[in-house]
């Protein structure tokens, strides 16, 4: 059975969570879009940064 790679799984999670949080916390569509984009990037960039920080102790 095919499965998602780690990055794709993280992107799916980030997209679903950021869309939900944006619609819960912002009243207008424009604000929601900006908030969702910002949250999505923070999820993805934060995970990549954390991965590189943890890389030296993973070996």
């Amino acid at each position, binding site marked *: 059975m095919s*499965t*998602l790679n*780690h990055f794709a*799984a993280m992107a*799916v*999670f980030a997209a*679903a*969570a950021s*869309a*939900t949080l944006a*619609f*819960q916390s912002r*009243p207008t*569509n424009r604000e929601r879009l900006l908030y969702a984009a910002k949250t999505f990037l923070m999820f993805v960039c934060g995970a990549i940064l954390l991965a590189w920080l943890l890389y030296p102790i993973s070996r």
Partner: protein
Amino acid sequence: MAETQSPVDSPAIARPGSFTWGLVTFFAGWLVPGLGHALLRRWSRALVFCLSVAVLAATGLWLRGIVFGSHAADTFELLGFLADLGAGALYPLARSLDVVADVSRAGGDYGTRFFAAAGALNLLCAFDAFAIATGRKP
């Protein structure tokens, strides 16, 4: 002639703004993701919440994560069960599918977290519906 009491005047019937109406939307939203907001005619929120929770839960099952049962062996399993239960009707559906969990791979472990996150997000959405229904949130 006795005056008939309209539904708006009756304290026993859930009406917009009442605590009872809030509970109705909370449980509807918990049971079926997005239904609480649909009852409040917040269509875009209902659609996004339904899709987000369903996608997370489906991805969790696809990655063959664990859907915890009620017989928890330790605290972590109990917390996992409570989080999974937050997914409402998706929880018994996932249990009935009998997906064989495989946490020997990282993907399976991710799947466990995905389903738990779906439950936690669904609870947040249900609380959001409650807040809107009771007038605590615009």
